[in-house]
C-alpha cells in the first residue's frame, strides 16, 4: 500500500510528460521502423509490406555509400578540429595568463573573447549558411574571392570544386561549434581546484605542462561529452548543407549527407518507405557511434 502510494505519486507527475514524449518522440521513431518495411508513397492509405527490400536496396545505392563516406570524413575531422581549437581557446581564456594572486587567470581581454566566441552559436544555422554563401561566393562579389581577385590571385570555387567543397562546409561547422565548446570547457576548467595549478606552478610547470598534465586529464569527461555531441552533429548537417550546396550534394556528391538524402527521397521522390529505411540506418549509425565512443573511452574517474 505504502509502495503503491509512493509510486502512484511519482507516476502522477510523470504521466503527462511521458505521454507527450511517447506521442511526439517515441511513436514517430517506431513508425519510421514500421514504414521502412513498406513501399509507402506518402499517399496510400494502406501501404504494402515489402520486408527488408528497402534495406537491400540501400546496399546498391551509390549515393548512400557516398553519403556514408562523407559522414566518415565529418566524423573524423569535425570533433577533432572543434575540440582542439575549443580547448586551446578556453585554456587561453581561463588559464593562459598564468598564476595571479589567488588563482589562475586568462590572457588579457579574455572576458571579451568569451562573449565573442559565443556569437556564432547565437546565429540560426540558416543565417550562418546564407552568411557563408556570401563569404564563399565564387566570383568577384565573394568576400574571400573579392580579396583574392584584388590581390591578383585566381578566385577559388570554395563550394564548387569537388576537392575542397566538403572541407569548406566542415570549416563552417567548426566555426559555428567552437564557441559552444569554449564555454563548455571553460565551465569544466573552472571546476578544477585552483590548488592543483598552484602546486604545479610552484614546482615549475610551464603553461604547456599545466595544460597537458593537469587541465586535459581533469577535463576528460567534458571532452568526452563534447566528442559524442559533435559525432552526432557529424551525422546531421542538414540545414547547413541545404543552404550552402543545395540538396544534390553538389559538387559531384562530395557534400552528400544522409539527412538531406532522406528528405529528398521522401518529399521529392515520394519514396517514404525507402527514406524511412535510410532513417533507420542513420539511427543505428548514430547509436552505435555514441555507444562505442562512451565504451572505448571509459576510464576511472578522479573525484575532487
Amino acid at each position, binding site marked *: 500500500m505504502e509502495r503503491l502510494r509512493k509510486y502512484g505519486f511519482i507516476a502522477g507527475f510523470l504521466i503527462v510528460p511521458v505521454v507527450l514524449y*511517447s506521442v511526439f518522440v*517515441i*511513436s*514517430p*521513431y*517506431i*513508425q519510421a521502423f*514500421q*514504414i521502412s518495411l*513498406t*513501399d*509507402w*508513397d*506518402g*499517399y*496510400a*492509405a*494502406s*501501404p504494402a509490406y515489402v520486408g527488408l527490400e528497402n534495406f537491400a536496396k540501400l546496399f546498391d545505392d551509390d549515393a548512400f555509400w557516398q553519403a556514408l563516406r562523407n559522414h566518415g570524413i565529418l566524423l573524423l575531422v569535425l570533433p577533432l578540429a572543434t575540440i582542439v581549437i575549443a580547448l586551446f581557446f578556453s585554456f587561453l581564456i581561463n588559464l593562459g595568463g598564468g598564476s595571479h594572486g589567488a588563482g589562475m587567470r586568462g590572457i588579457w581581454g579574455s572576458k571579451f573573447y568569451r562573449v565573442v566566441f559565443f556569437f556564432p552559436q547565437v546565429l540560426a544555422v540558416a543565417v550562418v549558411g546564407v552568411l557563408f554563401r556570401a563569404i*564563399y*561566393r*565564387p*566570383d568577384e*562579389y565573394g568576400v574571400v574571392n573579392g580579396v583574392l581577385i584584388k590581390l591578383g590571385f585566381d*578566385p577559388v*570555387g*570554395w*563550394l*564548387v570544386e*569537388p576537392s575542397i567543397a566538403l572541407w569548406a562546409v566542415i570549416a563552417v561547422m567548426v566555426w559555428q561549434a567552437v564557441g559552444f565548446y569554449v564555454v563548455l570547457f571553460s565551465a569544466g576548467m573552472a*571546476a578544477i581546484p585552483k590548488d592543483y595549478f598552484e602546486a604545479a606552478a610552484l614546482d615549475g610547470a610551464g603553461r604547456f605542462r599545466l595544460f597537458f598534465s593537469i587541465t586535459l586529464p581533469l577535463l576528460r*569527461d*567534458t571532452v*568526452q*561529452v563534447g566528442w*559524442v555531441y559533435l559525432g552526432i552533429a557529424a551525422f546531421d548537417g542538414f540545414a547547413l548543407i541545404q543552404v550552402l*550546396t*543545395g540538396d*544534390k550534394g*553538389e*559538387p*559531384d*556528391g562530395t557534400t552528400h549527407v544522409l539527412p538531406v538524402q532522406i528528405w529528398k527521397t521522401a*518529399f*521529392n*521522390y*515520394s519514396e517514404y518507405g525507402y527514406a524511412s529505411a535510410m532513417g533507420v540506418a542513420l539511427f543505428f549509425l548514430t*547509436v552505435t557511434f*555514441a*555507444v562505442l565512443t*562512451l565504451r572505448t*573511452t*571509459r576510464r576511472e*574517474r578522479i*573525484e*575532487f
Partner: protein
Amino acid sequence: MTHPGEITRRQLLRRIGLTAFVAGPGAGLLSACATAGGGGTPSSAAPATTLAASADPKNPFGVDPNKPLEVTIFSGGYTDAYAKEIHEPLYKKAFPGATIKHNATQQIGIQLRPRFVSGDAPDVINNSGPESMDLVALAGQGHLADLTVLFDAPSYDDPSKKVRDTVTPAVITNAKIDGKDLVLNYTVSHRALWYNARLFEQKGWTVPKTWAEFTALGEQAKKEGIVLFAYPGQVGPYYQTWNMLYTAAKIGGNQVIIDIDNLVDNAWLADPVKKAVAAWVDIQAKYGDKAYFGLDHTQTQVKQLQNKVLFYPTGSWIENEMVKDIPDDFEYAIAPIPDVTPSDVMPYGAIQVGVGENFVVGAKGKNPQGGLEYLRIMLSKEGAKGFTQKTQNLTVVNGAAEGVDLPAALRSAAKAQDAAGQNIITDARFEGWYKELFDYATEQMNVVMAGRSTPEEFCVNVQKKADEIKKDSKVSKQTRSE
C-alpha cells in the same frame, strides 16, 4: 562534476526499455498516425473519379450553388492575387451563395499531403513549387478528378464551343497521367536563350544563327569582358538540362525527347544528345566562367542585367521575375538556339513553347463539381486575361491576351513563335514523370559542364540511371506519342 557517460548509458537503456513497452500495446494505435492504418481500399482499385456532366451549359457539372469551395494556390512568382482578385470573384459572381476558402502557401506538399491521406483535400489545387506533390502517386490513389468532362464541357464564353477547342492543343496532350486527363496546365512559356536587345543594338551585334556565328560572337564578347553564356550551377542548373535537351531536339527532331520520355533503350546515347552536350561543354570551356557553377539563378540573372552575361537559358517568365531590377538600358529578348550542325532536323528559329503551372481538382474533396467549374472559369477569356494582367504571363487560352499591354519579353516571345511556325520544340515530360532521373541528369550536367566528365560519359551515366528507372517495377510508367 557530472558523470555524463554514465547518465547517457543509463538513459539509453531506459529509452530502449520504454520503446519496447510502447511498441507492445501501443503499436496498433500508433500505426494509425501517418498512414491511416489498414482497411483502406487497395490502390489498384482506385481509379480517377469521373463526374457526370449535366445538360445545363451554364452549369455543366451540376454545381451545388451553396456548397463552399476550397482553393489552394502556390504563392510563388505569380503570387496569389490572380486567384483572389480575378478567379474567385468570378466564381462568387456565378454562385453568390457559395463561400470560398482561399489558401495561399509555398509549401503545397507539406500542407496538403496529410489532408489527401485523410481524404480531406481542397477542391482546386495549384500544384507548383519546390514542395509540390507527386501527381503520379496521387493519381495512383484516385485522388485526382478526371478533367475529360471539363475539356468536353461548353466553354464559358461560347457554349457552342467545347473547352478543349478554346485552348492550345498542348493542354490536352499534357493533361494525361496513366492515360487519363487529370492535370490542367494553365500557362504558356517560351524557352530558348534570352539576351539584352539594347546591348546588341548598342554594339551593332546580330543574333547568331549558326554555331560559327555564335562562337565568333563569343570571341567578341570576351574582348569586352562579357561571358557568352552562363547558367546557374546552384538552385537552377536544370535550366541547362532543358537547354541541352532542346538543343538535342533541334539537331535530331522532337523524337529525341519523346524517346527519352518513353525510356526507349539507349535514348540518351543517341547522336543528337551527344552532339548537344559536346557543343555546350565546348561553349562553357571556351567562353564561360566557372564562377557561375557556384551562383544561384537570381545572382546569375542579376549579372546578366549588368551585361556580364550575353545569353541565358530560361523562359519567358524571366522579365516578370526580374522586373524590379531591370535597368532602363536593358530589354529582354528571346534568341532561338543557333544551328549546331548544317543538317539540323529543325531549321533555325525553332524554340520551345510549353505549357506549365499545374492545376488539379481533388476527386475525394467536398466539392469536386465546384472545382471543375472553377477551372472552367479560369479558362474563360475574362479569367485568362485577368491572369495575364496580374502576372505578365500568357495562358493557354487562345486569344485571351488580346488588348493586354504585354511586356517586352512576351512581345519578343510571341514574335519568335510566329517565326518558328510549326518548328516548336517539345517539352521534356520525364521531369515530372521520373523526377529522380531528371535530378540525376541535372547533377551530371554540372559535372560534364565543369569538365569533370566527358560528354560520352555523361550520356552513358544518365542512360544507366534511365535503365534503372525502367527496370524498377515500383515506378509507374508513362508514355507519350507526340
